[in-house]
């Protein structure tokens, strides 16, 4: 071997190599440190490599790292390390630097190897994932052309191999010194977000500021999570808001985790701190398939698939006006009571989230009778629709629990466009070709009955519990219309209840496949999912569909 390296031609080649190109050769050569064939320039390249590498690992330097820690935040690298399996991270573009030469940016002290983002791939519980983590310690994590280039590179790779992309956002915004180059960078990322949408799952975890144009990357991804107290998402900050609209608002109120998880619906969940957020992200990742070409993952399951759930037989109250908690049903049915709820504090009249049935990931959608009687309104329709479309895009079967009295009436809803927003949920369910199992637990009234993954929208298996009532509306309203002016309203109501307030009208028409005992629901769904695993259904060819946005 040594002979080869003693070859002068080769030595010349090595001498010409710029730093960064011989990374792969480094580990082997370190054992040969004392070999006489090292040239002076060769030594200096190696030193430079190590120096750069060391600098890259330190990001913006110890002082800024300490400041980051003081804010209760981890550094970009610490985050990546915690998110991924130990020693699984393979970094790319550690030596990439920004190319800006204005405003003194060309000076060495303003160059940081790797610039303000850490990118690469790794594994979460053995499964491949691409990740970028913005480094707030370097120019406040601001986005340069180089920064964007790094992100685009891993996104492109993720698309080619079919693996999810996780973005850990902690960035002050555009690199102003770079001007339009920075804006171009954003657009490059946006484009990739859009192209990757529905191809590989994309997840954003906001762990610091994310303002201005930057917010649109998380907004384009499938899920946006936030860290409480340390993360913000807004188009314009409080100062601009004050000068334009004269509103006084704090960062937290304007774009904090609470705002976005309860009011705006921009974020899907918030976690206490960086460590909790990253550990939860690992847990969340386990539910997801790697790409749209992969099936929903099946994890080893210890919960018997034929487990009966006697508690469900009494869960629906006798009075049809009395509320109960749909989450009780969900927890009781899914594996190990393990339910990863999406948007738990927003539009609480619908419950959506991931769970497993006999180990297989499923998406759960359920009306929540505990909140606003479980009615469908603008927010709950949009929340449900987006979730259903994610599941459909990534081969995740959808299980729908229905107890819906209808759409919420009122001017607020009509003026807000409940018609087009409600249509989204209808559209999403109708369009979905993944296995769809529906359980009507109680009310399925009016148009909302149609919307909630009904047989008519190609539901594969539609069950009704004995407490189910499938009808155009509740007894009181119906009687007032059918028997207008009739003396004995109570008697008419009783007749209506007898005819319609039960699962039979739907069952005799085949709109529900079976009336099942609630306690057997888990067993039946597990069995159905096994059969439906090979479901094949294709929608007519189209360039893309036109969901009523």
């Amino acid at each position, binding site marked *: 071997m040594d002979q080869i390296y003693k070859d002068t031609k080769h030595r010349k080649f090595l001498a010409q190599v710029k730093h960064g190109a011989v990374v792969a050769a480094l580990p082997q050569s370190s054992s040969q440190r004392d070999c006489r064939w090292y040239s002076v320039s060769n030594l200096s390249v190696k030193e430079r490599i190590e120096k750069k590498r060391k600098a890259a690992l330190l990001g913006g330097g110890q002082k800024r790292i300490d400041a980051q820690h003081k804010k209760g935040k981890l550094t970009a690298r610490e985050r990546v390390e915690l998110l991924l399996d*130990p020693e699984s991270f393979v970094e790319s573009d550690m030596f990439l630097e920004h190319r800006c030469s204005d405003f003194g940016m060309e000076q060495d002290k303003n160059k940081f190897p790797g610039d303000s983002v850490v990118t690469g791939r790794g594994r979460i519980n053995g*499964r491949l994932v691409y990740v970028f983590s913005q480094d707030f310690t370097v120019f406040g994590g601001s986005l340069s052309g180089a920064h964007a280039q790094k992100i685009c590179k891993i996104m492109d790779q993720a698309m080619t191999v079919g693996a999810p992309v996780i973005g850990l956002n902690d960035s002050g915004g555009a690199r102003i010194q770079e001007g339009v180059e920075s804006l171009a960078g954003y657009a490059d990322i946006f484009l990739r977000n859009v192209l990757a949408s529905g191809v590989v799952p994309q997840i954003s975890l906001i762990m610091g500021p994310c303002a201005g144009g930057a917010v649109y990357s998380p907004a384009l991804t499938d899920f946006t999570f936030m860290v409480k107290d340390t993360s913000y998402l807004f188009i314009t900050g409080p100062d601009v808001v004050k000068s334009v609209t004269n509103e006084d608002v704090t960062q937290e109120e304007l774009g904090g985790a609470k705002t976005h998880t309860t009011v705006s619906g921009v974020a899907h969940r918030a976690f206490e701190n960086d*460590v909790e957020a990253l550990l939860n992200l690992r847990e969340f990742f386990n539910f997801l398939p790697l790409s749209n070409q992969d099936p929903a993952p099946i*994890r080893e399951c210890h919960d018997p698939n034929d487990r009966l759930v006697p*508690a*469900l037989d009494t869960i629906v109250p006798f009075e049809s006006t009395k509320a109960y908690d749909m989450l009780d049903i969900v927890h009781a049915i899914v594996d190990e009571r393990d339910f990863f709820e999406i948007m738990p504090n927003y539009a609480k009249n619908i419950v959506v989230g991931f769970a497993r049935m006999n180990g297989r990931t499923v998406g759960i959608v359920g009306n929540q009778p505990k909140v606003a009687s479980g009615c469908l309104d603008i927010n709950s329709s949009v929340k449900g629709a987006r979730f259903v479309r994610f599941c459909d895009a990534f081969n995740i079967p959808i299980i729908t629990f229905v107890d819906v009295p209808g759409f919420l009436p009122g001017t607020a809803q009509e003026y807000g466009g409940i018609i087009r927003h409600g249509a989204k949920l209808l559209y999403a369910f109708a369009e979905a070709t993944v296995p769809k199992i529906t359980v009507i637990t109680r009310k399925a009234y009016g148009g909302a009955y149609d919307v909630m993954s009904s047989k008519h929208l190609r539901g594969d298996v539609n069950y009704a519990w*004995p407490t189910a009532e499938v009808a155009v509306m509740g007894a009181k309203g119906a009687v007032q219309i059918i028997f207008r002016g009739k003396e004995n309203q109570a008697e008419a109501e009783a007749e209506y209840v*007898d005819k319609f307030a039960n699962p039979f009208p739907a069952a005799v028409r085949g709109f529900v496949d079976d009336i*099942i005992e609630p306690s057997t629901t888990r067993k039946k769904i597990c069995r159905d999912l096994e059969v439906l695993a090979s479901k094949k259904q294709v929608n007519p060819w189209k360039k893309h569909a036109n969901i009523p946005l």
Partner: protein
Amino acid sequence: MASHGLSPSLNRLLLALKYATFQPRCCAVHKAHYSTVYNGNEKTFDKILIANRGEIACRVIKTCKKMGIQTVAVHSDVDSSAVHVKMADEAVCVGPAPTSKSYLNMDAIMDAIRSTGAQAVHPGYGFLSENKEFAKRLAAEGVTFIGPDTHAIQAMGDKIESKLIAKAAKVNTIPGFDGVVKTAEEAVKIAQDIGYPVMIKASAGGGGKGMRIAWNNEETREGFRFSSQEAASSFGDDRLLIEKYIDNPRHIEIQVLADKHGNALWLNERECSIQRRNQKVVEEAPSTFLDPSTRRAMGEQAVQLAKAVQYSSAGTVEFLVDSKKNFYFLEMNTRLQVEHPITECITGLDLVEQMIRVAKGYKLHHKQEDIPINGWAIESRVYAEDPYKSFGLPSIGRLSQYQEPVNLCNVRVDSGIQEGSDISIYYDPMISKLVTYGATRAEALSKMEDALDNYVIRGVTHNIPLLREIITHPRFISGDISTNFLPEVYPDGFKGHQLEASTRRELLASAAALHVASQLRSQRILGNQRVSNSPVECSCWELVVKLGKEAHPVTVTRSGNTYTVEVDGERVEVCGQWSLASPLLPLTINNTHRMLQSLSRDASGEIVLQYLGTSFKVRVLSKLAAELNSYMPEKVPEDTTSILRSPMPGTVVAVSVKAGDTVAEGQEICVIEAMKMQNSLTAVRQAKVKSVHCKAGETVGEGDLLVELE
């Protein structure tokens, strides 16, 4: 599906009938306890209505089924799918949830009797069981009351009268004032005459309700006020009486059984000294304290009293026993007691069966010498309550998971709930009576330990931590107990099981092993070709387990199902099946079998385990995560001295302050009534009231903000 093709209206009915089928496991378990064989030729009643709910209604129905008697359950609207309703052959709704409108609603119950044609009524305990009016109304309609005659109920139901009768029957009684106390000032005067401490209690009372102990004039006034309010709300009778309070006594009671032919037996004693707020928690039969001669003396006095009031049916004569084995008559309960199962266990009698026989007019089969003490029985009352607050404040909720330890032998569980049942604010928060027995007390106790460890209750806070601590406490094991046991043993309140170094290691090791098992399982994705081939399991897991404020570094290595955990410098071997779905977590820790329970596990490493009865919250993090976690800011907890939150769900009875008032430390702020107990909430410091967030009559949930102080 049974309801296929049936008319719609039949559907619900059919379902209801389906549920009504008797669960055989209850029967099988029960049978083992009775040595006397039921005589099928003795005709009693065709149909009995049980004017009660919950476990006691179920208990009575079980015996009725054994005797071939049809049963009728009554229920409030919220109880319409309760276990007792499903078990009974027929069920009648007698009103809305509040007891005064349903289970105490005599008119509705009388209607139910008429409409179903029930020939007799078993009242259970509580509710109408000692209501002479009810017994009278039944008699007037020719319906048999399964209990003593009206005369005996009346005589014994009134504490003042019962004391006089007891005195006349030569039963030892406590010095006290034989009359009704009218005002607080009169109460103070009488209390001073008798000498402190004194006990103020409702004349019509029982079960610890309307009962207060006073050590000085101030407490007497306060006690008078509370007792009369509670007495009024619980019994509709606010008469009070005062007597000498015997400090540090034992509470031992004699079960009696009498027929209508002048025969009466004593069925030995039950020791019920372990109490909190005068309500029993753990009972046992026999008592460790009684010698045969004291037992006989007490038994004979109890029988004298029963005979003096021509008692028939089962009844209980309660005594206070002081340290010198002097015993004093306390009261006689003219009903089936909650804790009757332990007497059944040691005597082999089915008390409900005997009550039904006696009510029909049959003579007792047994003679006094036929009554044995076979072995030892212990009963733990499992309550939906938080034992960390005054040894038990009621909690409510839905039993999301529920498994009784009935698979263990020599365990009897009397309950009236099942998985999915609601524990509501309307009724007693008792979940079940857990009874174990054995040839010896030690055997019964060790079985109780197992049974408590195997009892799965999720969805409500329960008192199993306290029960397990009591039955394993050296003082309890040695039999050194009194009614002051709890306050003496836990002067600063109950704090759960206190870990020692070795048990702490076991807990930490179990949590660490469970964490690793769960992490490993996360990597097992079935049939996936895209998971890395190279093994990701490290040979040694370096973790940090945090318990309370202490962080313990541990290392875990695995070999099959055995995890070797190095913790605090010691090696602990933990072996188990590691089912991550089961609520029970049977482990072998250093060759000792332990039943742990896995209460919750979340992504951020938090694991809650029930270990030795108490639930412990630990957080397991990888070494790296633990290091990084040190940068995470501590979130400041709420300042609890400035806000008053409701410690339990209930109704606000009174709000004693308004915004702007200045309150002194200990001053009453408001009164919450829950499960018929009035609880006075006081200021923890002197302060000005900032705002009041509740008003009288309002229903509040646990943790609801009531009042803010400045």
